[in-house]
């Protein structure tokens, strides 16, 4: 029971963090069809900006201003780089943003050094919110989950219930018609890209204070956010949320369960034989827990090629 509750809680919170980072990508990828490989770099920039600002002012200023700075950088990239290559198709956008990843990484190292910086949450946020079976549960984890939840609600309402959302969706689905109706489509794209970057920046500012803020943080999350978006279905916010939670919970349970292929064989009485084989057969699930998301992606793509909530299903 303890294992079940603790693992679920850990998994859900980690899933919320994944959602927080991938929400902006869902917006950019889903609404604009831009493969932004540099999305996790925005996440990293958000953390570093928040680190600098929290040193100059305080934690909350960092949390609010850092996403705005990242949004400005994002809009600059959209306006002066991505828009130029957009006509040449996805491959060019991918290559451009792929290059940006390296540039951002080395730039960060130039300015902040090669080592993790000391970006900490303020002391008054540093307490245990409850005690679970003798283990303190840090409040900040819950805080991350709450921010992600808030982000989901705001985005969902904005996109489906307001006029702004309607224009954005129209600009994505039928750009020519939207333009004919008098909407400034390039401006809409600029705004969406900025908003997506800001979301990544915000998640960096929040999560960077919990996980270390270091020059590799973009690399660490870069691939997994794509997995979330693909599993969830392109452009589907709800899909991203479900995919994030699934990945979080599965990874969490994988650590605690020492299952291996050998234990599967022992169910049919071949356990001794399988254990004698060694190698991959006896490899416990916990040792490959970070591959769980990719396994999930494989299965989802086989069963539902457009993702869990993808519109093409």
């Amino acid at each position, binding site marked *: 029971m303890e294992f079940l509750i603790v693992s679920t809680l850990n998994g859900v919170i980690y899933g919320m963090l994944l959602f927080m980072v991938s929400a902006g990508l869902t917006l950019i990828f889903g609404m604009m069809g831009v493969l932004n490989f540099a999305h996790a770099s925005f996440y990293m920039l958000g953390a570093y900006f928040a680190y600098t600002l929290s040193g100059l002012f305080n934690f909350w200023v960092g949390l609010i201003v850092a996403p705005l700075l990242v949004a400005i950088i994002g809009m600059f990239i959209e306006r002066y780089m991505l828009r130029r290559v957009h006509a040449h198709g996805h491959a060019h956008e991918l290559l451009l943003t792929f290059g940006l990843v390296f540039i951002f990484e080395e730039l960060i190292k130039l300015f902040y050094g090669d080592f*993790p*910086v000391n970006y900490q949450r303020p002391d008054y946020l540093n307490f245990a919110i409850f005690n679970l079976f003798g283990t303190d549960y840090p409040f900040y984890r819950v805080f991350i989950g709450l921010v992600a939840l808030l982000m989901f609600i705001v985005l969902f309402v904005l996109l489906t219930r307001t006029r702004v959302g309607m224009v954005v969706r129209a600009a994505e689905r039928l750009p020519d018609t939207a333009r004919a109706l008098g909407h400034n489509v390039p401006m809409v794209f600029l705004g969406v890209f900025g908003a997506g970057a800001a979301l990544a920046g915000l998640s960096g500012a929040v999560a960077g204070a919990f996980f270390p803020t270091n020059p590799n943080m973009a690399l660490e999350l870069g691939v997994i956010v794509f997995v979330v978006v693909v599993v969830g279905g392109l452009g589907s916010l709800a899909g991203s949320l479900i995919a994030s939670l699934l990945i979080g919970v599965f990874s969490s349970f994988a*650590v*605690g369960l020492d299952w291996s292929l050998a234990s599967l064989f022992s169910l049919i009485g071949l356990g001794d034989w399988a254990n004698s084989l060694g190698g991959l057969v006896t490899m416990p699930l*916990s040792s490959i827990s*970070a591959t769980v998301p990719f396994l999930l992606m494989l299965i989802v793509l086989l069963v539902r090629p457009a993702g869990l909530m993808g519109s093409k299903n």
Partner: protein
Amino acid sequence: MPRWITTAAAITALGVIAPAVQAEPLKIAIIESLSGPQTSTGRLIATAAEYVIDQTNANGGFNGEPIQVKEYDNAGDTSGAATKFREAAADGAHVIIQGASSAIGGQVTEDVRKHNIRNPDNPIIYINVGAEAMELRGKKCHFHAFHFTTTAPYRTVPLMQVMSEQGDLGKRVYSINQNYSWGRDMEAAIVDNADRFDYQVVDKVLHEVNRIQDFSPFVARIKSENPDSVITGNWSNDLLLLMKAVGDANLDITFGTIFMDQPGNVANAGDVAEGHYVAHSSNIELLDEAGTEAYKKATGHYPVFIEPTTLNGVGLFAEALKKVNFDGGDIDVNEIALAMENTTFDNGLGGMHVRKADHQAVIPIVVSQVASGVKYPVDGTELGFKPIKTVAGEDAIYPAQDSCRMRRPK
């Protein structure tokens, strides 16, 4: 006669004449991860190695010429290292220094071995200052490879010994390591020493390398075994996140680590780090102040993490250079290698030398504890590494592996 033949002849003639006119300078290639995720380690190694060479050059260089050092960026992967090795060999490097990553170390040492088989008159020395895999001193050992860093059992034994003497090891030990050669070496060392230091390995986990963001599931698993101490060879994020997650859960567990002294660790872990142990090959607290201050003056910071190891290794090499003399003639790399085998170097904690059987350096190991009130606090915090005990190299070192069959030059 076509013109190109004349030109070619002229170039050949120049090539033959040149060494007679000018002494051959010693060329050192630093093949390191100077971009990509491993920069933090690679840059430190390059800085420390260049510091030692600069000192030698200030004292007149070698063979009548300043030693030439060139940095090659392997970008953090083995294919990059292989390309850069060919470049360095083409540039005429006599010595290669490398350290970040055992995988790259494996690539470089094999490249050097093959090069030396094909070019017996023109061999290259590999100075390893950071790759800790046992295999490099075992199956992959060869005469021209020198290993100045330790290995998993080399560090684990002193770590366990001191933690047990201090009463912080306890009876229940948890092993958590990264799932590759280094982590497996660590796990084996932790299991092998259970009887010697009277503890029980309650659980052992191998996890993926630097891919896990959230360690709380691992903490839940650790907690369920109720260990007294956690021994881990984790480095970088894998150590930092693990310590933070354990600290957040408020579990009272002592960590025995190998890489706690990586910059940024203590600051990021905060008070959680206090009381944990680290086994390293040097501790700045024990070193001569003049030396560390001179280092700071030249590089802008005190020697940290992998820098002392590099200073020791390249220092021994520089000491060995004093024993050979080519009178401004051609450099005989084998002679330098033989001199390195017979050199004893004082690294500030005691003498160090190279074991002939597998070219593993015999270095004392310092076991330190993260504590306040030290001379050199790190990362802008109050905390630093308080030395608890220095274990002599002979007492800590593992026996040479049978798999190492070294062919010596005739």
